[in-house]
């Protein structure tokens, strides 16, 4: 899957879980500082990414992604 598609779907997931406008999600937005994710929402995001891309992410790796672009990289790694 192309990164551009991964990015687009990731933004959709973030928008739904964190209730933020998809257009307002910047590439390097930090989940906590910029998008306001709390600990529970971070868990939800991981779960939502797993469901969206039908992957099982390593817990450690999943939580190491702090920004949207890092999430794109981690998830792309699973898909390719």
């Amino acid at each position, binding site marked *: 899957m192309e990164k551009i598609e991964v990015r687009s779907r990731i933004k959709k997931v973030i928008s739904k879980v964190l209730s933020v406008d998809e257009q307002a999600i910047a590439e390097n937005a930090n989940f906590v500082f910029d998008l306001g994710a709390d600990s529970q929402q971070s868990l939800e995001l991981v*779960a939502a990414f797993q469901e969206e891309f039908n992957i099982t992410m390593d817990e*450690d790796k999943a*939580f190491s992604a702090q920004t949207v672009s890092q999430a794109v990289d981690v998830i792309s790694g699973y898909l390719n």
Partner: protein
Amino acid sequence: MKYRNITRKEVLALEKQGCTAESWETVYVRDPFVLDRVRHVRFSGVNSIGVLNQDVQITPGRSEPSGLYCSSFHNCSIGDHVRITHLLDCSCYTIGSHTVIHNVGTLAVQEESTFGNGTGLDVLNEAGGRVLKMYDRLTAQIAYLLVVYRHRPGLIAKLDEMIGRYTEGKRSRIGTIGPFNRITDTSQIINVNTGPFTEISGALHLENGTIAGCEEDPVLIGPGVEAKNFIILSGTRVEGSVMLQSCFLGQGIRMGKQYSAENSAFFANCEGFHGEAVSLFAGPYTVTHHKSTLLIAGLLSFYNAGSGTNQSNHMYKLGPVHQGILERGSKTGSFSYLLWPCRIGAFSVVIGKHYTNFDASEFPFSYISEEDGKSYLTPAMNLFTVGTRRDSRKWPDRDRRKGPEKLDLIHFPLFNPYVADKMVHAAETLRKLSEQADKARDFIVYKGIRIKRLLLKTCSQYYEMAIKIYLGEGLISSLFRFVGSSLSVFLPAGEPESGPVAWCDAAGLLVRSDEIERLVHAVENDEIKDLEGVEKKLGELYSAYEKEEQAWCFSLLGKRLGKEVRQITREDLKQIVRDWKENAVKLNNMILKDALKEFDESTKIGFGADGDVTVRDADFLAVRGTFDKDKFVMGLRQECQEFERKAAEALEKIEQIKDPPLHCHHSREYAVQPG
């Protein structure tokens, strides 16, 4: 201990020193009797006075002559080398040697008393039905049986009978002030016994109670304390105008800052400040430090109450009949509220206000939060928060009990069969719920609480991770104690027929449920006839924890491998070690990431109040230090390195075990080094 009557000459001298007696015939003394040390004293009834020829330490470095001064005694027996001054009314007491009493209004036994023993406390259910009869050797575990096992009336009747007999042994018209007591500036002490080395300083009113301290672990009752119907055990300090009405305080407790409690029992190492407790079963390590915190009708242990924590046991229908359970290691956040009945799983965190009744006990290590007035459960989330790990480490270090006998039996492991069993079932439940859940739904409702659908599968994986760590830890600790050479001897029998048995957490004691059932049965059938017998059996169960836990652990291993325990192979064991290492490192990394949040930009808000960003960062650095130098962080990193070493060692040990024909020998007696 030979006493004699006072001679006529001595009477005249005493009278000259301002002393009077209803009858000097019934005042007895022991030689050498130092006349000079009894001044302005009134005697009535029968009194005896010990030897008063030594000085008594008042404060470190300051001693005063022993003696009786400006006091009044009625039917008292006074020990050697005491110093009693300005004790206005002392009736019916035996006062131990080397005790100092100064400026006390009343110290009296006013009628036959059991000194708090046998007093019933309406614990857990304020409306009654679980009356806990306290006595001065009550343990958390016996209390647990008395309060929780009401479905076994035979057991309750027998235990009550035993406590009744014990209480009768305490019944007396004469009270005891133990040796080396220091009682000063106190208004009233009525029907109270004290053990050795007790200090009562500035208390207002103490009535119908026992203070059972000891030399190694004395009790302090401090200023402003009022207590009626109470028992306080060794090492406990109650000060700061605490108010107690019908309360049991076990060993090593700290209570102060106007805390008030009624009909409540607190066990080892509890702490209560500022707040209020009603009908509380505060198991070991229950801590409440803040104002406006009401803990009511709850069964707790290893619990920490945030400020403003509140619970309701009253729905204005049939009275305050509701009750709740917060299992071991739970926390409630600031201004959290729970509407009883409700049950929270072990090591969980409650945030927000919860107005529905739910049972989340199947899901340990959870977050319970509130969104738009609805309660949500995030299972397993507390597994990888830094607080849980810190808590589990601090409890053993904070055991304050110094006396020769620790009454409450407390197991500390964070992962144990009780919690692991819950995690096994929780993982399975979440997996099933995930499969069944309608993907169009955002959440499902399980036992009264919402769980976000997306989290069902993920949280099940987190439990799986923790189970692998638990099993690996169990295996590795067995390996390191194993001294034999064959796999069949190494593997315990476990429970091949029935699988892993259920465990329970009896107020700190982790024990197989069937063993508790055996104990209950033994009491019901008079096989155990007295409290010593119950204590002894509970002590045996406590000591058997390690062995039983290993058996349980292997039994679970077998179940998960789909094998009987004796069929587990060397390769199986190696895989468990490898899984353990991988997951233990992973969990520690997740905890480190949680700890890292304590050093991110947002946590610097409030630092460098009068400066710019540079000042803020410098201020933060000065006060908080760096993530890398944080003691806890360094500890976790060190632990990760140890995981590597331990895993390598464990794999080597497995390699060294000779492979016998596994099916030919199977014994429950597996070889372990003692201790």
